[in-house]
Structure formats: C-alpha cells, structure tokens
C-alpha cells in the first residue's frame, strides 16, 4: 500500500498547540541525505512515536531538534517561533530535553550528584540536601521512586533510565525525546517506563519516543510518524487507523516476507554441538561474571540467550569461543573438550563467532573486505609461502553471491564503512564457514529490516544444516521467533531455560529480572 493513503490523525490532541514544529528540514552528510525535506510536529500532552529502520534518519532528526546538528535547510519552530538551535544548550533553554540510548550518567556518582551536574544555575557550590529534596519532590510528583543518595552503578538499567528522564525534566524540559529507550529493558521494565511516560503526558508534557517496535508504539503512542531513507513517509498518523502490515511496508518501502513457520523439529537424539558444564568465568574486573553455568546446545538447534544487558552474555560468548579462560568447569564442542581456552582450538573444532563489537574485535585497520574474509580461510588459500589473492577474490565474490547479504565493493577498506556494512562483512564471513557451532552475538544489529530477515534465514539455514546455534540477542521478539529454546541469564546465573511456545514474554522477563519461572 502506498503511504499517501495514511491520513494524519484527527485525535484528541488536535486542539493542543505544537511545542515544536519543523518544516522542510534537510541535513546532508557529504552526498548522503540523512533527512530530506522533513515536516514534523509534536504537541503538548502527547506521546509521539517516531518509527523507522536503522539508518532511516530518526536519530539525525532528533539531534537536529536537540541542537546537536544544524540543518542545511528548513526551519525549526518552538512555540510557533522560528529558532536557531546552535547547541544542545539552546535546545534545553527552550525546554527540549533528550535521553540518549547510551545513558550518560557517571556510575561512581550518586543520583543527586549526577542530576546536580546538569541543573541550570547550579553555581559553584553543590547544595546536596537541596538537590536531594528537589529530586524526591520531582519524583513524587511524577510517580517515580528514585533514591537520590544511591550510587548510579548500583542501579539497574531501567532505574538509570528513569534518573536520566528525571534529570532532563528537572532541568526544565517540556518535550522529552527518548532514543530507543526500550532496547535495553526487560518487558516488566518497559511497563514501568510506559507508566512513567503516561504520567508525563498527564502533566501536559510532550514525549517523542524513537523505536522500531510496533507493539510498543501501539501501547503508548497517541500519534506516530514514519521515516524511510531520510524522508517522512507518514507524519502525525493515528495508530488506530493503520495495521501493522501497512506500517511495516511504509517503514521498509515494500512488503517483508515472513519467516517460515514450519521448521523441522530437532531430533531428541542429536549429539550436542556445545556442552557447557559447571562453568565459572571471571569478568574483566576480576569479579565472577558467570556462575556455575550448565548448558547444552544440540546439533540442529537454536538456543537463544536472553538477559538484561550485562548479565554475562559477553563472557559466555568469549568462554565458548576460547577467548576467555574458564575459572572452573569445562566446555565441549562437538563432544571434544577444549583443553585450554584457545580461540584457535575452538575454531579447529568448528566453532564460529559473530562478534558483538566488530570494530574493536574483528576489524583490522587498512584491510579491505577480501582480506577480512581471507583471514578465516588462510589455510585453504595458501600458495607456497604466500596467499593466493586471485583465488581469495573469486572465493569472496562467490560467497557474497551465495550468502546474499550484498557487501560493498570488495576492495573497500572495512574500517571506513558504516556499521551496517561492517556487519554484513562479519555475517558473510561467519556464514561462509562450515561450522558445528555458530555463536551469534546480536547478529542483526545495525541492519535494515530486509537484511535482518535474510540474516535470520541464514541462522535457520545453519540450524537446518546441522549446526548448533547459540543466539545472543536483546530483542525478545527475535529470540522468541527464532529459538528452539531460550536460556535466560540473570546477573551471571542461568536463571532458566524455556521453550518459546510454552511461555510468554513476561515469564522470560521475570527470569531476566531474577525472579523464578
């Protein structure tokens, strides 16, 4: 369906004046039009959901509103008056506040100290008691319970997020922009966040929530707008007037085929591709990051790994691939014990990883796409003392064609690429290797919808081919859709292993937060 048929809504906020309105807003980065000729408005007392794929320009638009970027064309009206926002300070002075996806609190400081840092007119002295009282008052007014004396590092991610929101509100914001606030939260925490957002709306404040999750938009938004490739393809729409399919095709520009629902059941008698027995692992700080983990992934099975960010996912990934020494316990890959933690040994047993942070852990400065892929095929590309680069180029071309993730030109330097294109290189490399165990950490991060779908198909294809797949994700929907079973981590413990068809997302959320099944 075409977006022209999505009508602006005539909803109950129609009478409210716009706090902010933009007309013809355009921002270019070199040849790339990040946002082109965008019209958009937010009214007081509404929750406005901004939908779009990764790279659609959502964050750019919000950074324009928050004064981080300045537009190349177009104008920004606050309370009906055209303003230039040269810096976030200008935006804050006009009552516009933003909570970034990566929370920017100082962990070693208390809540009150963090908030005091951003309060206007704080002066030289830090009036601790006054600030603490203000926080309690503001929290009570909005129905947040926040302990101003608590150290931020002792707070959960959800609590930190609320502190950020409080911080923004206490510095006088009437419009709060939340950049993908739910991506790091368990379902229960999402409910808590939404309760907080509703109380802001009840106070007549405006909230913009950036997301790509439709059910969240439906749960909270009064109106929604959709960006695609920098263009506003639907602005100020009433969510009740459109169905999910129309929204997705508006976001993506075409219909996305569903994943095949019919999958072969993994036979119960399959051998284990991965067996983790009694594993304790130390984190970077010497703390115990994984406690007594017992886990088995059968050949031909997708084992999802769920958990609030920082629950031990990274340590599990590294332990399984021989990147992090085990304190106690042992790991078998394809029934062979890894004698010592050695990435070469894990590779030799057929364990392949898709890294969480490719830039720091997999991308080599100066090397092009072909060279990055050759790196995992060095033994087969040997020619005398050298490397058969002609064959490497053929191999990479062939892989790119078969895997179908459409990498950029193979002579491009990977370190110069955007996150999504780097990820395609990482995925093509991992899927191009025959493996007995695939350990995928957040494989669809930074990808658009169609490429994400292809990546999911490729994961399932590995499963069909008989590999065990350990699939770490922070997206519960994706985990429920792809996994045969889901292992839930809480604070380094295995809180439970559940079967997606038998439990709902709240049961998984309960485990993520440390409750029992």
């Amino acid at each position, binding site marked *: 369906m075409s977006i022209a048929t999505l009508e602006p809504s005539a909803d109950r906020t129609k009478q409210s004046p716009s706090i902010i309105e933009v007309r013809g807003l355009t921002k270019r*980065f*070199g*040849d*790339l039009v990040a946002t082109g000729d965008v019209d958009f408005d937010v009214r007081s007392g509404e929750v406005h959901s901004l939908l779009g794929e990764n*790279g659609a320009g959502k964050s750019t638009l919000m950074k324009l509103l928050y004064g981080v970027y300045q537009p190349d064309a177009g104008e920004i009206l606050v309370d009906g008056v055209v303003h230039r926002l040269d810096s976030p300070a200008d935006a804050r002075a006009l009552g516009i506040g933003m909570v970034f996806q990566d929370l920017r609190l100082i962990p070693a400081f208390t809540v009150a100290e963090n908030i005091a840092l951003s309060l206007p007119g704080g002066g030289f002295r830090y009036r601790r008691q006054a600030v603490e009282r203000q926080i309690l008052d503001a929290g009570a007014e909005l129905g947040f319970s926040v302990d101003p004396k608590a150290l931020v590092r002792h707070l959960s991610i959800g609590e930190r997020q609320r502190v950020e929101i409080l911080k923004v509100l206490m510095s006088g914001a009437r419009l709060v922009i939340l950049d993908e606030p739910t991506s790091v939260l368990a379902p229960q925490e999402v409910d808590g966040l939404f309760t907080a957002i509703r109380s802001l709306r009840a106070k007549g404040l405006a909230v913009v929530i950036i997301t790509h999750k439709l059910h969240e938009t439906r749960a909270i938004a009064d109106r929604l707008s959709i960006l695609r490739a920098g263009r506003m393809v639907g602005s100020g729409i009433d969510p009740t007037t459109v169905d999910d399919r129309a929204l997705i095709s508006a976001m993506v520009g075409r219909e996305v*085929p569903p994943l095949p629902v019919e999958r072969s059941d993994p036979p119960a008698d399959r051998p284990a591709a991965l067996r983790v027995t009694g594993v304790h692992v130390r984190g970077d700080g010497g703390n115990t990051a994984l406690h007594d983990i017992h886990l088995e992934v059968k050949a031909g099975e997708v084992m999802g790994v769920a958990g609030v960010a920082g629950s031990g996912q990274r340590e599990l990934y590294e332990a399984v*691939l021989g*990147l992090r020494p085990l304190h106690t316990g042992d790991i078998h890959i394809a029934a062979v014990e890894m004698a010592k933690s050695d*990435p*070469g040994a894990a*590779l030799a047993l057929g364990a392949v*990883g898709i*890294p969480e942070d490719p830039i*720091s*852990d*997999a*991308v*080599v*400065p*100066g*090397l092009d796409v072909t*060279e990055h892929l*050759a*790196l*995992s095929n*060095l033994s087969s590309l*040997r020619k005398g*003392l*050298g*490397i058969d680069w002609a064959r490497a180029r053929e191999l990479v071309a062939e*892989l790119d*064609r*078969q*895997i*179908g*993730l*459409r*990498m*950029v030109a193979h002579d*491009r*330097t990977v370190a*110069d*690429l*955007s996150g*999504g*294109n780097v990820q*395609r290189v990482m995925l093509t490399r991992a*899927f*191009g*290797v*025959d493996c007995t165990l695939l350990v995928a950490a957040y494989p669809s991060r930074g990808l*658009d919808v*169609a*490429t994400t779908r*292809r990546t999911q*198909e*490729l994961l399932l*294809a*590995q499963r069909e*081919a008989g590999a065990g797949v350990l699939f770490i994700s922070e997206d519960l929907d994706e985990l429920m859709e792809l996994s045969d079973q889901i292992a839930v981590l809480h604070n380094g413990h295995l809180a439970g292993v559940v079967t997606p068809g038998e439990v709902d997302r709240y049961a998984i959320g309960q485990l993520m937060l440390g409750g029992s099944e």
Partner: protein
Amino acid sequence: MTVIDSPPEEITVAPEAPTKGTNDLARRVGSWVVAYLGALAVFGAFMALKGVNPFVAYRDMFDSTLMNSASLSEVLIKAAPFLLAALAVAVPARGGLVNLGGEGQIVMGGIAAAGVALGLEGKVASGLVMVAMLVGAMVAGALWAALAGVLRVGAGINEAISTLLLNYIAIDVLLYLISGPWKDSAGFGQLASKPLADETRLPTFGSDGRIHLGVFIAMAAAVGIWLLLRSTSWGFQLRVAGGNGEAARRAGLPVAKLLLSGLITGGAMAGLAGAIHFAGVEGQLRPGMTFGFGYIGFLASWLAGHHPIRIAGAALLLGAIAVAGDSLQIDAGLPAASVNVLMAFVLFAVLGKKPRLAGASR
C-alpha cells in the same frame, strides 16, 4: 558454506560515501614538497641565527654530497646501515611494535662479527669468514631483539622501553670487550679490538673502490623484506596482528609467535647493519662506532611510513644529510651535530604532514 535458494532481490547494497580522496597525486606531491621545504626553511633560520648564510650553506651542502662521485659513494656507504637499521624498525612496526633497540642490536651484530672474525680468521677461507660474520651478526641482533620480544609476549613488558634499555647494556658489553678480553694490544692505548685482516673485509667496488658489498646487501635486504611483508602469508598475518591484535587472536592467529618473529626479523636486520659497518667500514670495534645509527634508522622508517622501498629513499636522504654535515662543519663552521637538528626538523615536518599508523600501509 550456507546456501539457501537464491539471494533475495530486495536486499540492496547499503549506500556508502566514497573514501576521502587521498589519492590526488598532485596534492600528495605538493604536501611532501611543502613539508621538506618547511624543514629546510626552519633549519635555514637556525643557521642564520648562528651567523651563517643559509643559502651559501645549502649550496655547499648540495655540492659536497651530490656533485661528485666520491661523495656520492660516501652517501651510499652512510645510507646502507641506515637502511638496515630502518628495516629493523619497519618489520616490528607491521606488528604494531616499537623497536627502539636498533642501536643495541647493531652493536651486538658488530660484536658477533668481530667475535667470528677473531675465532675464524686464518683458520678457514676468508669468504667463509665473511659469510659467518654476516650470519653470526644476524643471529646476535635477532637474539638481542628476542630478549625484548620474550619479555613482551611473556610478561607484557612494553617493548619500546625494554629495547631502549637493552641498548645501554649492549654498549656496555662492547666497552667491556674492547677494554678487556678483545683489546688490541697494538692499539697504543686506544680502546679498540684487533683490526680485521684486509682479506676478510667486505670486497669493494666502483672506480674509487669505496663502495663495499654491504651496500648491495642492504639493498637486497630492503627488497627481500618488502617481498616478505607484501607477499607472504606471514607478512599478512603480521599486519593483522599489528592492526588489531584482538581481531588476530579471534581469527586464531598465533599472535605471540607473530610478534616475536617480527621483532627477531627486525633484530637480524640491525645485526646485519652492525656487521657491514664493522666489516665494510670500521674494520675494528671501537667505542661509538655506530653512534646513532639505530636512532637514525628509526627516523628513516617513520619518514617512510615503514614501507621498505620508501625506506631506501629515506635512508639515502638521511645519508646525504649526514655527509652534508661534514661540509657544514668545514665550510660553515657549525658543529657536525647540527645536521641532527636538520634531521629532526625533517622528521617533524613529515610526521606533522600526515600522521601514519604503524602497519597501515601495504
């Protein structure tokens, strides 16, 4: 390999801005010219401050280095150990390592060559002695570098510090040997080892008979190292380890072995520099015989972005500046060490022009 159906049509290559054009030849050459002229201008101001007419001094320097064949030979002879010392920096740099120990590795190479000569001279054919000197020097330089390498991969001790400190030890070993066990009894009290017999000195070529075999050895080494880094699997793996050690580890590469072998190869090149200087020029060990070669080599490698062929050019340039230093002393009355100031200005100008990441160039 995973193959499912045919790739879906709807996946498109994500747009990607073209790489910023650093390939504009005219601009690149222009920026080099500006960098070198800048260094010359600053040094000219320095000379003017010392009461020397910089234009006259530069003309004298130019005339005395490039305008006659004798001084051209001199430039080549000076450049050869610089070139090898620079390769000693460039190879480890591919692995992301900083080898500040060229000086010590050169000294150990010289000591090994002298030791071999002392032990074998007169007992075996002189050609054999020469080969043994060169090989022994490479082994000694390699071992001296390996000390720092083992400390690095075994205990995580920063190789820049350890290689630097090993320089002082190597020089003390040299002083001990030439003031004790290897002291030349016919040396009139000068601290030096017994001179090399004429027939075990490196053969010389050219009309003036000054260019010795070491010059060609150095050039061959530069080509050899270039091929090694560029065309072998080892060179590629070393570059990966240097570019991102964690990526190398995760790809299953033997990172510790790669770093160690890079440092050892570099040390062998420095050892070779010690041998050709000993057997081609000095003929005996004496204090300060290699004074500063290792550091000049460091400079040359950075000037050239650690690229072996470009290093040969940088070594020639620095060789010419070193020879010009003599004219500076004779004609302009400035201390010979003034050329070190010029070398430093050149380095600053080039490094300031474009910060290069170690191992980034191919």
